[in-house]
C-alpha cells in the first residue's frame, strides 16, 4: 500500500467528480429533494378525508353529531348522500374515502346503548384511511346524551419522544439512512465499473497499482460526500421540520460513518458483479427496495413475518435506522446500541472480504 498512489487516486476521483456536474448536483440535490418530499408528503396522521354523510335520522342530535365529527378535522363532509346506494357509488368512484351513516333509529340506539348508534364506512383499499377511521371510532358519543359527562378513558397512552406525533420527527432521522443507501451504494458501484467500461482499467492494471489502493482510493471521496449529506439532512431537518437531536452529535456522525462504510462495501461488492454502469445501477436498485421496505423505515419491524425479519437483520439500513432513531430521538448513546454497530461491522467485513477476493488484477 503506497500512500502516494492512494492519494493520487483520491485526487483523480475528486477532479473527475468536480467536472461531473450531474453527480455533483446529486450530492446535495438528492438529500434536499428527498427531505422535502418525505418531510411534507409522508404524514400518517391523516386529516380532512373527503367523506359522504348519510343522515337517515335527521334529528337535531344527529345533525349536531355530524357537525362535531367535522370539527375534529379527520373528515370533511364533502357530499350529502340520500340513500345507501349513493354512499356505495361515491366510495367506488373514489370521490370519498369514508362515509358517516346515521341510521333512522339513531335516537333509540343512543338511548338504549345496546347497538352502535353510528356507522362509519371506510375505503379499505387504503390502509392509512383505515387507521384514520379508528380515530373516529373513539369519538365520545355519550357526550351527546349528557354534555357534562366526561368519560375517563380506560387506558392512558403516554407518548415519549414524540408527544405531538409529528411525522417528520420519525421520518427525518431514518431518511439519513435511506439517502445514504441510495447515493453511497449507487455512486460507488458505478464509479468502480466506469473504470472498466471506459477501458481505463486495462491501462491501470498494467501499472503497479494494487486492487486495495484502487478500491480504497475510489471509495474514500464518497465517505466525505456521505458525511456532507448527513449534515445537509440534519441541518434542513432542524431548520424546516424542527427535528431534534437528543443524543450526542458525535454519536450521530460516528453511527453514520459506520453505516457509510457498510453501504460503500455493498457498492464495491455490486461493482464486482456488474459488467457495465447500467448493470451496476440495476443491481443497486435491486438492493434498495428490500432495504427501504424491510428496514423499519416505512413499516414497523415488529409487524413483519419472521422470514422478513431475518432478512431485515441482514440489511445494513435496518441497523442504522435503529441507531439513528435511538441517538437522535431517544437520546441513547452508542454504548447502549453496540449490537447494531457490531452488525454493521460484520456486514462490512464480509462484503469487503468477498469483493477483494473477486477483484483480480487480471483481465481474465
Amino acid at each position: 500500500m503506497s500512500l502516494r498512489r492512494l492519494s493520487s487516486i483520491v485526487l483523480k476521483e475528486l477532479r473527475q467528480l468536480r467536472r461531473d456536474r450531474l453527480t455533483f448536483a446529486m450530492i446535495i440535490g438528492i438529500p434536499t429533494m428527498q427531505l422535502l418530499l418525505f418531510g411534507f408528503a409522508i404524514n400518517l396522521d391523516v386529516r380532512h378525508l373527503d367523506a359522504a354523510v348519510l343522515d337517515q335520522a335527521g334529528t337535531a342530535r344527529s345533525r349536531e353529531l355530524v357537525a362535531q365529527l367535522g370539527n375534529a378535522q379527520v373528515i370533511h363532509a364533502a357530499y350529502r348522500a340520500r340513500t345507501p346506494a349513493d354512499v356505495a357509488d361515491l366510495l367506488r368512484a373514489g370521490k370519498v374515502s369514508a362515509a358517516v351513516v346515521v341510521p333512522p333509529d339513531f335516537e333509540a340506539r343512543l338511548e338504549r346503548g345496546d347497538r352502535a348508534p353510528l356507522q362509519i364506512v371506510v375505503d379499505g383499499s387504503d390502509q392509512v384511511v383505515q387507521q384514520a377511521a379508528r380515530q373516529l371510532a373513539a369519538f365520545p358519543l355519550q357526550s351527546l346524551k349528557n354534555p357534562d359527562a366526561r368519560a375517563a378513558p380506560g387506558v392512558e397512552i403516554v407518548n415519549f419522544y414524540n408527544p405531538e406525533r409529528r411525522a417528520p420527527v420519525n421520518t427525518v432521522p431514518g431518511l439519513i439512512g435511506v439517502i445514504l443507501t441510495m447515493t453511497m451504494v449507487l455512486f460507488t458501484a458505478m464509479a468502480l465499473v466506469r473504470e472498466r467500461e471506459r477501458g481505463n482499467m486495462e491501462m491501470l492494471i498494467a501499472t503497479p497499482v494494487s486492487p486495495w489502493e484502487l478500491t480504497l482510493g475510489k471509495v474514500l471521496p464518497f465517505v466525505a460526500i456521505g458525511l456532507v449529506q448527513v449534515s445537509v439532512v440534519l441541518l434542513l431537518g432542524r431548520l424546516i421540520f424542527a427535528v431534534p437531536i437528543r443524543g450526542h452529535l458525535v454519536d450521530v456522525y460516528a453511527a453514520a460513518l459506520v453505516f457509510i462504510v457498510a453501504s460503500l462495501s455493498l457498492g464495491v461488492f455490486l461493482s464486482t458483479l456488474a459488467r457495465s454502469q447500467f448493470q451496476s445501477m440495476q443491481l443497486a436498485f435491486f438492493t434498495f427496495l428490500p432495504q427501504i421496505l424491510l428496514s423499519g423505515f416505512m413499516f414497523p419491524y415488529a409487524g413483519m413475518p419472521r422470514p422478513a425479519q431475518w432478512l431485515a437483520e441482514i440489511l445494513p439500513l435496518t441497523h442504522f435506522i435503529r441507531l439513528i432513531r435511538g441517538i437522535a430521538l431517544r437520546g441513547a448513546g452508542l454504548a447502549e446500541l453496540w449490537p447494531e454497530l457490531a452488525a454493521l461491522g460484520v456486514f462490512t467485513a464480509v462484503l469487503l472480504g468477498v469483493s477483494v477476493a473477486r477483484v483480480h488484477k487480471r483481465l481474465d
Partner: protein
Amino acid sequence: MALPELAIRARGLTRRFGAVTAVDGVDLDVPRAQVYGFLGPNGSGKSTTIRMLCGLLTPSGGDIEVLGLRIPAQSEALKRRIGYMTQKFSLYEDLTVGENLEFLAAVHDVPRAATRTRIAELMDTYRLGELRAQLAGTLSGGQKQRLALAGAVLHRPELLFLDEPTSAVDPQSRREFWESLFALADAGTTLLVSTHYMDEAERCHRLAILDRGRLVADGAPRRLCADLAYGVWLVQAEAARAAQQTLAGLPGVVALAQIGAELRVLAQRDVVDGDALGARLAAAGVTAQIERGTPNLEDVFVAATQRPARAAEAAA
C-alpha cells in the same frame, strides 16, 4: 535464463477462450532495443498475445520470460519495468493532459522531485505543452496518441508494448509517431508494436506474422521478402479483370491482386512460370505483357496467411 539480448522469450504460448483458441502455440524471440512488429488481420491474436506478455492475461499453456522474469508468476515485478499503450485510448478523458500525466507519474512511483522535470521533458518531446490544460477527451486522434505514448514511457520502461497505436491517426501523425518509436529504440527501449498496416510492418527491425492465433512467419522484413517461396509476376492487360478471372483457377496460383491496370500474381515457382501464365491468358484470348516482380511484404503476408486455407481446401 533468457539470453541477455532477448527482451521476450515465449515458447508454445497458447490461450483459449472457451472453445476458441485465440493464440495457438506461438514461439517468440524479441531482441532488446529493437522495434519488433506484430502483423496480422483483426482477430489474429495480436492483442491477446500482448496481454499475456504483459501479465494481464493468464496463458492457457506455454512459457513466457520477459526481461528475465517468469510470467505470469512475476508479473507484478514486470509491471514496474514495462509500458503498455492500449489499443483504445485508456487515459482519463475528463482529466486534463497535465493531470493525466501527474496521475500516471504517481501510480508508477516516479519520485515526486523528478515528476515535474520528467513531465516537462515529455511535454516538449511529444509537443503537448500547449495542450497541458486541455481535457484529454477534447484532443484530436493524433494528440491523444502522443499523450498516450508520453504516458506509457513516463516511468522510462525498458520494454514498451503498443497495441495498434496508429489505428485512429492520420498519415502525417503516423510518420511522426514512428520517428518517436525509433528514437525510443535508439535510447535502448525494446518496442513491440502490433499493426495491420504493411508500411508500418516494413519499418520494424523484426516482424512476426500472426494468423488465426498461429505464428506463420517471422524475421527481418527484407529477409522475409527475399526468402519468399513463391514467385511474383506482374501482368499488364487491357482487360485486367478478365485476366484475373482467367488466372484464378490455374493450379499453382496462390493469390491475385489488381493494382490499377496491373495484376499482381503470386504463384508457386515450381508449378507456374511466366510462360505458363502467358499461355493461359492467350488461350482465353486476353492479350497481356508479363514480367517478374520483386516480392514485397504484402506478398509475404498473403502467402503466409493464405497457405493454410488453401491446404485445407485441397484436403477437403
